[in-house]
């Protein structure tokens, strides 16, 4: 059969996608300060916040600081949104991973508003979060994000936010 392009080697694809994600996350100092990591399954991202003592807000019960929870949810939303646009540019070849330095990093969405619902206190252990993009328009996006610890079905916090999308230069 002619005319069919041979699929790319899996290692090449993984290297490109994981490299782009690492560059995106690694460029933001506040994400590094909090120690947030991202895991990728295809285009789906899961954020991980490894527990550390500096994240505590209530020393008596060693609960996570409300600001840490809010930050974790907002970081997850912004990276998930940015990853969505980056993914398209990456797969179409518009962006090359090797050229993703400080100058060529995609512009990040800006938070317009963010509402956090604290369902239960954050325990002194690792936390996970996933964001869902409910509206992704040219100007703004609406995102819902959920965070849990031991049990996926028992959220400790959720949030909804609106984000101004970076305008494309073309």
């Amino acid at each position, binding site marked *: 059969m002619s005319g069919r392009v041979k699929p790319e080697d899996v290692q090449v694809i993984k290297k490109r996608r994981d490299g782009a994600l690492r560059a995106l996350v690694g460029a933001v100092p506040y994400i590094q300060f909090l120690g947030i990591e991202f895991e990728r399954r295809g285009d789906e991202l899961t954020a991980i916040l490894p527990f550390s003592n500096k994240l505590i807000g209530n020393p008596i019960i060693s609960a996570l600081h*409300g600001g840490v929870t809010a930050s974790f949810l907002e970081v997850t939303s912004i990276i998930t949104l940015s990853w969505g646009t980056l993914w398209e540019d990456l797969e179409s070849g518009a962006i090359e991973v090797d050229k993703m330095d400080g100058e060529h990093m995609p512009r990040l969405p800006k938070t317009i508003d963010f*509402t956090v619902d*604290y369902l239960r206190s954050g325990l002194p252990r690792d936390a996970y979060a996933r964001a869902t993009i409910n509206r992704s328009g040219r100007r703004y996006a609406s995102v819902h994000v959920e965070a849990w610890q031991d049990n996926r079905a028992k959220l400790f916090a959720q949030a909804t936010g609106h984000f101004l999308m970076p305008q494309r230069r073309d």
Partner: protein
Amino acid sequence: MTDKDKLRIAGQFISALPFSEALGMVLEELSDGIAVIGMPYDAKLVGDPRSGVIHGGAVSALMDTCCGAAVMSHPSNPGGTATIDLRIEYLRAAAPGQRITARAECYHVTRSVAFVRATAQDETNGSPVATATGSFVVEGQR
């Protein structure tokens, strides 16, 4: 106890919260349901590496701490508090290099819930950087 003593003791309480301490938050004022907390600019808090603007999450942390302090200072003497819900509006980017100061007011308290609003300013006079509204659980009075 003088107001100055109260401020000093409450200030020690804020800096005993590890995350508030890590962000360098300092309690500047505290009286009858009103709290003012400052947070210095720090490169580790940057959310947008291109512009050097502080991450919204760090501003949220400041707002949350300040709102909680306002609840605790309310004349009804709550024994403890925890955030139920906090909404933040980011009006403009905080100027890179400038200190951010939040002012929160706990304007109504019932037996179990406290209602708070807050604004955050950088060192540029004029419109706030962010505004917040929140509701907090009130745990047993002292």
